[in-house]
């Protein structure tokens, strides 16, 4: 336990100091951390899932609080919680099936096992419905009572099992943890391979002689473009440098090294150049539930320009960037102001920054935000590792990857900040 604590604290520090760059790295590290947390959590015999959920939540809340703007942390925490719930459910289902079988076989031995299988069978049915079926209006209406009952039955199933087969207990508890860790490993795998999966779709979107504009740097975009290049598509890329970090220079360098004709432009020239561009392809920081995008600063401008010239605005986003939150006042609440020194040299402006006279309020403010919010209406297409999606479809993807219970966590976490 203490070593996980140390790990958590270490990671918290990194998050607070913004030392981790990029949502992919953050997501991966978060998942790895949570994996070790899970593996270190001592699970009681009863209600193991709840215990796991609790410990993950406790860590997750702290992580989210450390950097509320890095939505990937929250996303991964929620994904892990979802995984635990799912694994628990499927395990219960399997166990119930086993219990059912055993109930049939040895109902003589078990006196009170009579009503239990019936009950849990219904619960399993409800649970499987709720997990396997998409949350349509009908299922929502049907499931409300059952859904709440699921954790209960699962624990009672555990109880019954515990009662009936004590030898099974340890193996089962190990099994849940094992399954969860397996699933988290899969998640980590997914996160680290999302680039390739997105890049695979490149040829479907980039044709010969296309002119593509991008802003700043994103590894996803780089691999996407390179994948198309490897497939012998020849096209031209305009890279806007992406002030104040000027990562566009980096991207341009990478592209040039790989032999793509690249033109580096200033951000202010985006509007001038966009009329000659066939497609805008950018990365995202996070994708919100309404299909809006939290993206590196400047992209809202690009998106507006693209809309003006009817140029498709394509956002590449790994599925770990999918955030089940709805953006409320995202320009402020989901933004982060960086150091003014990136824009103004303190030395040069020190004479202006000195204000002995007047009302005392500084005359000079420097605003250097990190993110932009691009509303869903400006986005033409999302390309995720599961394929292309419309902005209006995002809520549905979210329902696939997150369970509704975990929204509470986020709300608490965000309100805590």
């Amino acid at each position, binding site marked *: 336990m203490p070593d996980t604590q140390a790990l958590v604290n270490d990671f918290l520090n990194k998050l607070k100091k913004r030392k981790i760059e990029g949502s992919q790295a953050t997501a991966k590290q978060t998942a790895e951390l949570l994996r070790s947390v899970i593996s270190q959590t001592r699970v009681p015999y009863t209600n193991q899932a709840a215990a796991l959920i609790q410990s993950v939540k406790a860590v997750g809340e702290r992580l989210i609080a450390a950097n509320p703007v890095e939505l990937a942390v929250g996303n991964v925490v929620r994904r892990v919680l979802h995984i635990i719930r799912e694994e628990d459910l499927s395990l219960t289902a399997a166990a119930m099936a086993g219990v059912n079988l055993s109930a049939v076989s040895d109902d003589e031995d078990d006196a009170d096992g009579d009503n239990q299988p019936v009950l849990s069978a219904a619960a399993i049915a409800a649970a499987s419905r709720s997990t396997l079926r998409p949350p349509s209006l009908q299922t929502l209406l049907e499931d409300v009572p059952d859904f709440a009952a699921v954790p209960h039955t699962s624990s009672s199933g555990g109880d019954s099992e515990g009662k009936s087969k004590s030898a099974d207990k340890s193996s089962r508890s190990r099994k849940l943890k094992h399954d969860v860790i397996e699933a988290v490993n899969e998640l980590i795998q997914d996160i680290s391979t999302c680039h390739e999966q997105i890049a695979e779709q490149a040829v479907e979107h980039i044709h010969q002689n296309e002119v593509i504009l991008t802003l700043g740097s994103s590894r996803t975009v780089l691999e996407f473009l390179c994948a198309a290049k490897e497939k012998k598509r020849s096209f031209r890329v305009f890279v806007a440098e992406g002030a104040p970090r000027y990562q566009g220079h980096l991207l341009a360098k990478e592209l040039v090294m790989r032999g793509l004709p690249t033109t580096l432009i200033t951000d202010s020239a985006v509007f001038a150049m966009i009329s000659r561009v066939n497609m805008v392809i950018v990365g995202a920081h996070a994708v919100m539930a309404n299909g809006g995008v939290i993206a590196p600063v400047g992209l809202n401008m690009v998106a507006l320009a693209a809309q003006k010239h009817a140029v498709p605005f394509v956002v590449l986003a790994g599925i770990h960037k999918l955030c089940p939150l709805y953006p409320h006042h995202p320009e402020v609440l989901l933004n982060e102001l960086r150091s003014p020194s990136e824009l103004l040299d303190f030395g040069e402006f020190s004479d202006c920054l000195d204000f002995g006279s007047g009302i005392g309020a500084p*005359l000079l403010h420097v605003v250097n935000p990190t993110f932009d919010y691009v509303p869903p209406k400006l986005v033409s297409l999302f390309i995720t590792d599961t394929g292309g999606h419309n902005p209006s479809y995002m809520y549905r993807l979210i329902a696939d990857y997150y369970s509704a219970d975990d929204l509470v966590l986020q709300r608490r976490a965000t309100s805590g900040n």
Partner: protein
Amino acid sequence: MDPRRTARTVSDPKVRQVGFFTPAAPPDRSASDLPRQQDPIQPKSPSSTQVNDHSTSGDSLSPVMIPPPHHHSDTVPRTALQVTSPKTAVSCSSRTVTVPTKNDGVPSSFSPGRKIVTVKSPSSYPGVKASTVPASELTTVSMVNLPSGISEKAGGASVEVQNDRPVSSKTLKEKTYKAERRALQEAQRAAKAAAKAEGTKASTAASKVMTSANTKPSKAAKTSSQKNDSSQVAASEKKIGERAPEKDRKKDAPHPRMQYDDTSRVEKAKKRAVVKQTEVRNRVELFRHLPQYEHGTQLPDLETKFFELDPMHPAVYEVGLQYLSGDIRGGNARCIAMFQAFKEAIKDYSTPPEKTLIRDLTARISSYVSFLIECRPLSVSMGNAIKFLKNRIAKLPLALSEPEAKATLTSDIDRFINEKIIIAEKVIVKHAVTKIRDGDVLLTYGASSAVEMILLHAHELGKQFRVVVVDSRPKLEGQLLLRRLVRKGLSCTYTHVNAVSCIMQEVTRAFLGASSVLSNGTVYSRVGTACVAMVAHAFRVPVLVCCEAYKFHERVQLDSICFNELGNPDAISRVHGREDISDLDGLVNRENLQLLNLVYDATPSDYVSMIITDYGMIPPTSVPVIVREYRTPVVLVSDSS
């Protein structure tokens, strides 16, 4: 040419709704010289002529037409050999009306709305000088038109073109002037007869003129024109020599600019060039039509050449170097610097023997201008200013002695600077300040001198507001503005262009400067202005563009690519003050990498709520009207000299 004209006339009624000023000169006959001399003599009340002008310019308004026969009854008899087409006659009337706008702009006179009209009152135009000149001019005109009669096929055709054009474009006007035309044709016929008698010697010279005049448009289309001003010069020279009205009309369409992907032209231009320029290795494919030269190499080269450049005046040379090094920037500053240098040059100028001042000085100025172009492409404002100056030179009365002519020109230049730039800015400030209220958050982009003056003036008036200065690489002009504003005690927020959509929520007005406003309402300005205007538009923030009227131009442009200026590409790869960003250090010469440093961009007129100019506050749709209004006075002022 003609479609353009019709477009203008279409915009006419709109203008009138806006309550814009009354005297609408027909757009295209600005430059005709001949009739100018006659009109001052015509007795007419300004108001009546104004009405006429409107009717002539707006085809659609037939009922308004008031045929102005009395003008012509005046004019035609006066000049025995009246060869001018009715068009020119019209132009004279219109011109007289507009003359006074130019009249030494008393600052007070520039106030919004009708002011112009009031200014006009001092229009009592001196017809004194005019009377002296016409004799010589008339003869030249007759010479030009004679050949048209002689070389029956070519010349006759040209005459027809000359006469037909007005018919097609302005049928209504034509009707009204039918009488005059008939008279004119008579006159022409008479002229032909006379010419026949005169014989061949005139025909050779004149036919040359004619062919040049006729082929001009096709040549322009085919070879995409040679260096802008050189052709302009040629035209103006011709004009000086021959005073042919049809040439002026042709000149109305803006010259096609030098296209740098035309190798033969570029070669030619290079031979003439003073500044040694080497092509950038990785030219941006999309901008082949623009000059893309190696930056940083010209300056030392030029400096070494200082003593070899004989014909270049040192003042001009100095300004050129300043352009090259970027010490002088901003449309107004560059324009003023150029004019000051020209003034010096004119002061030191003396006509070489066996040359006329008008021709030689024009050529001299043209060579200066092409030198300046080599240092940095002209801004639109400078182009307009040069056009003005050349016009003035061309219109110098021949009788004027050299010192007198020089004095006139220098005073003209001073007046231009004073009226069109300094006072215009003051007027703009006066207008714009009314749009600033307490509690406003004003956004500006880059560093526009007009906007700066507005902000400072509003601050002086005690208005409580905050300024958001948006800036962008590579010039970071906003920092200079920011520094000046903060020094004056304005509360400022500084950010970069990418963050504009974050900051736009709190902004209540966006004040933008402009390098030029084109006649389709497009605002041609520092690159990034379009982005800012677009975001402001998206956030429903009014966009006010501040631009002096002398920067308006009749060209049209839809995107920022067809015409632009390319800055030093190296400025892109190196980020000022951020030495840590050096990703592109070793790559600049890679074949695949192109660095594009656009200097200007074109803001579509839909993003512009209002243009604040010295003629008042106008919607972008009214720009062509200003252009039209504005052009005539330039010619007219020339009369006043």
